[in-house]
């Protein structure tokens, strides 16, 4: 059975159909890239999966469980993690503290109340080492550069260890080397985590994607491997307008 099944998903914002009759299935452990021109409904789709936006119709099932009607934190507990387009980390906290917040295998309030200190140190260091922020462990997150902030949020998602990770433009603002490093990291995650990535950088998409879904005006335009999409006439029309 597919890990994530979206059927006839629909959402309207004041008459505007941001996502319109959208179907999508995602298999466990694959990396799916969502492409599409601006306003195609890519970010909105991620919002609908993680609960930031409630749909007007349709269903989202994750591991056989219907998600519609569940609150954000309940979906996170089901195993869905989200990285936002604008990197959102806790700027007033240190890098280590940011990861402590993300370490949420036991997110219940009572559990937090009886947990003293900052939790598992070694796993945090391992993650920081992986993303190359180990030197900055005690730095305030607000003092990091844009690229480092992106890395920190990725590190937080790795710490959260969700089965399904939704990434909204993870490489925005990164240098070419940083982008390559991100691609390598994502490929290591393939198999153990499912990734849905919204991205514009085609060279990055070529390196990581198992499958591509192209959206346009809230609906699915095309679906297939990287090569299939690059030769798809409808996709070219949507992007170039001819």
């Amino acid at each position: 059975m597919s890990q994530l099944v979206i059927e006839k998903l629909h959402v309207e914002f004041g008459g505007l159909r941001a996502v319109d009759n959208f179907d999508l299935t995602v298999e466990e452990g694959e990396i799916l890239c969502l492409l599409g021109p601006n306003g195609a409904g890519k970010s909105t789709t991620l919002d609908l999966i993680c609960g930031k936006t409630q749909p007007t119709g349709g269903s989202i099932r994750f591991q056989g469980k219907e998600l519609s009607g569940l609150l954000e934190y309940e979906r996170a507990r089901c195993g869905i993690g989200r990285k936002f387009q604008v990197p959102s980390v806790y700027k007033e906290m240190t890098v280590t503290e940011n990861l402590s917040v993300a370490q949420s295998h036991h997110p219940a309030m009572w559990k937090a109340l009886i947990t003293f200190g900052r939790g598992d140190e070694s796993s945090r260091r391992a993650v920081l080492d992986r993303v190359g922020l180990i030197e900055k462990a005690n730095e305030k997150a607000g003092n990091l550069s844009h690229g480092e902030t992106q890395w920190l949020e990725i590190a937080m998602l790795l710490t959260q260890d969700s089965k399904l990770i939704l990434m909204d433009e993870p490489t925005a603002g990164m240098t070419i080397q940083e982008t390559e490093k991100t691609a390598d990291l994502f490929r290591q995650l393939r198999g153990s985590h499912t990734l849905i990535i919204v991205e514009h950088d085609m060279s990055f998409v070529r390196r990581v994607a198992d499958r591509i879904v192209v959206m346009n005006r809230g609906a699915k335009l095309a679906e297939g491997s990287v090569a299939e999409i690059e030769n798809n006439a409808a996709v070219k029309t949507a992007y170039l307008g001819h």
Partner: protein
Amino acid sequence: MTRKLSYDLLAFAAFMLVIFLVVPTVYDYDGFELNTFARYLSLAIVALALSLSWGSAGLLNLGQAATFGIGSYAMAMHLKLRASDGLPDFMAWNNVETLPWIWVPFHSLGFTILAGLLVPAAVGGIIATFMFRARIAGVFVAVITLAFLVAFQLLVIDQQGMTGGQNGLTGLAQLNLFGWEVDTYSTAFYYLVAGCLMIALAVGLYVSHSKFGLILRAIREDAERTRFFGYNVASFETMIFCISAALAGWAGMLYVLVLEFASPTYMSVSFSLAIVIWVAVGGRESVIAAAIGAILVNALEGRLSDVFVEGWNLMLGVTFVLVVIFMPRGLFGLVTSMIKMATERVRIRSHRPHAIKPIKANSQSEGRR
């Protein structure tokens, strides 16, 4: 152990030393002076309670005085019952013939103490549940809690037969704690209040250094983000309101012991705002700083309001404005930035030998900073 925790423990030990040794010595173990200081200490508890919700989670609770008032009335009811044969005197004046059912269990001290902690916690919890499930945040929390406070004070004043109305509860007996007749002008009583403050501070420090406290700070910065890590933000916010309210109730109970009467002014808007000022002066990020802020401002008020009877409130207001403009993090912020500057200076000094070396080494040490 993190550096922050060791700093806090150090400050806690120093504060304890001052409260338990220095202050009694300075006042020469004089009962009257120590009673005055015990009043500041009980107010320090309500200040640290506010710093937990306002400083950690960013929830400005302007209704703190209501929960403080509930605690104070609980204790006053017990002491009033001890002072009267059967029906308290003010009830007779109000044509109340039998003791209202709500008063009956306050014959027991155990019940009184439990009620003084749990009723405020329950009241705080109920308001918080309604607010935070609806995701109310920011200034609206302040507005709603303030409105609740005003309504609650009106209710207490209105129920004259049960609460003594505008006069409050006066003519109270002394507390009998396990056979010890508590003389509020004794050194022992001062240590009782000081001990309570220390326990309350320890609770506050535990909360802010637990994972719970970390998540509260995360909520203050970005509640939305915190939800996507699986935390039920509303339950965290509700819990800190309950803890804060229980501590405020505890402070209220001690306050009644010190002053030997309960009055609806304990639930006034101006008292609630005063708590905010103490916390702002001390620094809302730290429970110890908030407690110190309360003691300092009240001690100043004790000295200056005798001299400047009319002008004192104006001076307090101006102080608040100046603190908000020039020290937004209060005395705590001032002290931490001074410590930071001092350690920075030490670090630069220890780096100086490198600076004499060729330019390459210099730029390296720059980069590290």
